[in-house]
């Protein structure tokens, strides 16, 4: 089966004062469609950088990232935006809901962007699915952390992404809410057959995925 995500000889270097720091060094891995993967490692190991490169949010210094048969390194910013809109979903540690939009409008954004019809019904269904059917018109500031992350999950799945990137999805939540969010994430992922890449510190969460990539000092160990 062809891989949905292929990372080859990936390196990333950042300037720091007069020096350069190599954050990622020769990373290689493949992810098959529908597979779930956890990227784990201590702080500063390069997890978030790797996620950013895989999702086309940043550009590699060396190496290649191929997502759904598309070589991201070669794409311009606008093409990368199209890739993100069509193939990728995101869940962030700090939820990153748009504070000026209601829960429903936040979920509608990815669909509205590409001019799809009936987005309101579809988005409302998704919010119903995550248990927020009665909070459609609430603004993020009127929702709890767990509720905000549920809106973020609904938004991430709204465009039926081929691959979902989650950056510490439970990092800002208490254990009980975190567990509930994890269940929701895996359940919908299963329903939609989405590939899931999770960056996490949480070893319990990592164990629920099909494969774990451990990073240390910018290298896979």
């Amino acid at each position: 089966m062809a891989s949905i995500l292929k990372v080859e000889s990936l390196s990333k270097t950042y300037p720091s004062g007069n020096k350069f720091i190599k954050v990622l060094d020769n990373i290689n891995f493949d992810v098959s469609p529908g597979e779930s993967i956890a990227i784990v490692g201590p702080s500063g190991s390069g997890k978030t950088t790797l996620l950013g490169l895989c999702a086309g949010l940043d550009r590699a210094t060396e190496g290649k990232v191929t997502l759904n048969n598309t070589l991201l390194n070669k794409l311009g910013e606008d093409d990368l935006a199209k890739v993100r809109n069509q193939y990728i979903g995101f869940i962030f540690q700090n939820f990153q809901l748009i504070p000026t939009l209601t829960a429903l409008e936040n979920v509608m954004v990815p669909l509205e962007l590409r001019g799809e019809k009936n987005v309101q019904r579809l988005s409302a269904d998704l919010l119903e699915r995550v248990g927020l059917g009665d909070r459609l018109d609430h603004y993020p500031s009127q929702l709890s952390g767990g509720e905000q992350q549920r809106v973020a999950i609904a938004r991430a799945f709204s465009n039926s992404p081929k691959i979902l990137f989650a950056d510490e999805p439970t990092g800002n939540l208490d254990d009980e809410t975190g567990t509930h969010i994890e269940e929701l994430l895996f359940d919908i992922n299963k329903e939609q057959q989405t590939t899931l890449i999770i960056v996490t510190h949480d070893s319990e969460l990592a164990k629920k995925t099909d494969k774990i990539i451990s990073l240390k000092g910018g290298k896979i160990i």
Partner: protein
Amino acid sequence: MPDQNIPNTRYSKSWPWKMAWRDARNSKSKLLLFILAIALGIAALVGITSFRENLLVEINNQAKTLLGADVSVRGSQLLPDSLLAAHSEYAADMSRESYFASMVYFPRTDGTRLTQVRALSGKYPYYGAIETLPAEASRTFLEGQSALVDEKLMIQYNVETGDSVKVGNLLFHIAGKLRKIPGQTNVSSTAAPVVYIPYKYLDRTGLIQKGSRINYLHYYVFKEQADTTQAWKELKEVTEDRGYDVDTVEDEKRQTSRSFKDLTDFLELVAFVALLLGCIGVASSIYVYTKEKTSIVATLRCLGITSSQAITIFLIQVSFFGLIGSVFGSALGVSVQVFLPELLKDFIPISFTSSISWPSVFTGIAIGVVVSVLFALLSLVSLRLVSPLQAIRTEVDEIKKFDRIQALIALVLFGFINLLVYLQIRSWLDSIIFTAGLMGALIILGLMGAGLRWIIRKSLSQNISFAWRQGLSNLYRPHNQTTILIITLGLGTSFIATVLFMQSMLLERVTISGAGDRPNTVLFDIQTPQKEEVKTMTLDYDLPILQEVPIVTMRLEEINGMDQMESEQDTTIHRRSWVYNREYRVTYRDSLIDSESIAEGEWIGLAMGDSIPISIAKGFADNLDVKLGDKILWNVQGALVETYISSFRDIDWRRVQTNFLVLFPTGVLERAPQFHVLITKIDNTETSARYQQAVVRNYPNISIIDLELVLKTLDEILGKIAFVIRFMALFSIGTGIIMLISSIVLSRFQRMKENVLLRTLGASSIQLWKVVIAEYFFLGILGSLTGVLLALVFSVVLGQFVFELTFVPDFIQILWIILAVTGVTVFIGLFNNQSVISRSPLEVLRKAG
């Protein structure tokens, strides 16, 4: 390499509009400053341009009533019969008027006053009316020995219709109060109140004497079929060549429009400054807005929007709010314009009710939207550099401070400002100088900001208290707003200060002081036989004779052997043609007086032989286009006198002295027909009144200028001018304050989290207040100081090149400006941070989202 599988996404065209609307729902209050800033600037601009449009239309419509006739011919002598006959070919009717300054005396109340006496015959005005109370008095006064007296003068001297007024030797019955005459403003009637008498009594008043300065006017109304184009044009030229001013309705229209150009130009400059301040307010508020929207843009980028879509969302908002601000501003401007005719009624010779000038309104709205968009784009384009990575890593990819697109927008912006300035002053060179000055000011302010950061970083002592150290350190730490705040504060201060300095300078220009030992009473038109008697009478009243000056009237015939025609044909000579047409009032002395000094050449006080050295006022020499040694031939009432220029003089015209453009030495004009001027000083009002009454009773031809009265009148006029200037300056100051608020709000964004953290770590409210005071005090003091320095430079340049005045700074005023701007900066800073300092850290963080 695999086949690229880039999705063929067709982005919804309407989505940015939807997003713009949704996002704006909760951002209205944040854009309020933006709307206010643009609204006040546009209000001032629309108000003034609409007013000007209305004024020009009304001048156009009422041009005939301004002149009261189809044409007027004015000269210092009666028209010769040949010209009268030529004019009557075209005229259906003619009226005569002679006017001159003369004292009048009200016997019942024993009052005397210098007035403008107008002797009228005929049916003038042919268009419009002389407004009197009772109305019929405007015609009936011509039938008997009656007069019309300025209404304000009658109130001032407690005189009623039916009383008498003595003009020269004759007593006239006051037939009515004079309210308005064609082409006259309230200000001009305040300065020179008019008394009309019938022309047929003019000779009998005894006021027409040798040397009397009398203007003769002939008003014509054209025959219906008269050829007023080519043939009249030629006759006009012939008449003007004979030294008469010929004014047609078109000339009057042009002159009236031109005389209001200075006023409307100044008001437009003030409005433009208000608009520029508004633009800086726009730039500041959008800078803050852009910063706040960075995380939203990063998230949206993750969700797949392009950078241009991100900019489009906020550009739609800015255009929309710019439109709202401009429409609101235009509405405000239209309201202001309704008040302007009332505000300026004393200066306008026509009465009109203003109507909405739609071209001004639409231009104002268009300018408002364009400047909003351009100034906003400066910040908004930086959104295209927001990386989606910022959604997961806030500490990376800070928006770049400067890039090429921003530089391009800045260039377009300066081009646009330049265009706007050009439209105000119609000179590319001046507009480029203005815009370059603005750019220079920005660079200087930017350097000052950078310099302040560097100095504080290098010199900040660890020994001062935590609060002061923290406040000062904020000026150079990462994410500091020092440079942009210094730029906005400084630019705002410099604009406001320049308007205030200009106002002081213009008011100073016309203020003369009658205080101290300066003379305060001038008697003129004293005939030679009256000279000694008047001197004796003056001494009898215990009054000093401070100056006694003979005056000889003459005309200029040739300069270096060239008469007017030859001079006009020689293209190498840049001589004003009127120098040949005017009458010169000249004196002779053997020495200079203290209001004059030699600028060039040598002063010779006694003429020896045929060679007569004269001295010319330096500024006037430019009009004559002459140099030292040039020869001038004068016609002294029939006798030709050849002179040469031996010196140029600098003259302080503001001193109460009789000063002269042309000064002869002794030994030439002593026996020429002449009259005299006497200057004295009267210390109390009672003596002044008695002395003036005695002079008028005994010598009705002598006129008296009472400088106390002149100063009082001037003060009244200046009060009106100052009110207009201050009213308009309010717009600049109002916009300036909004701009100040938006620039300080800038820093709140950066300081909030820092202050919350300090609170969490246990800093007391007092410490945090001190931190804020230290930071804003230094920003305020440096911004205002730099702004004032720039304003001083602007004022010196404007004074030198535009108003031709030497600008003398008033240090008290400067101190007030610096204190006021610093005070307002600290106050706004404190007000801005009070919610952060007085609430619990958690509450603030929750509110900030």
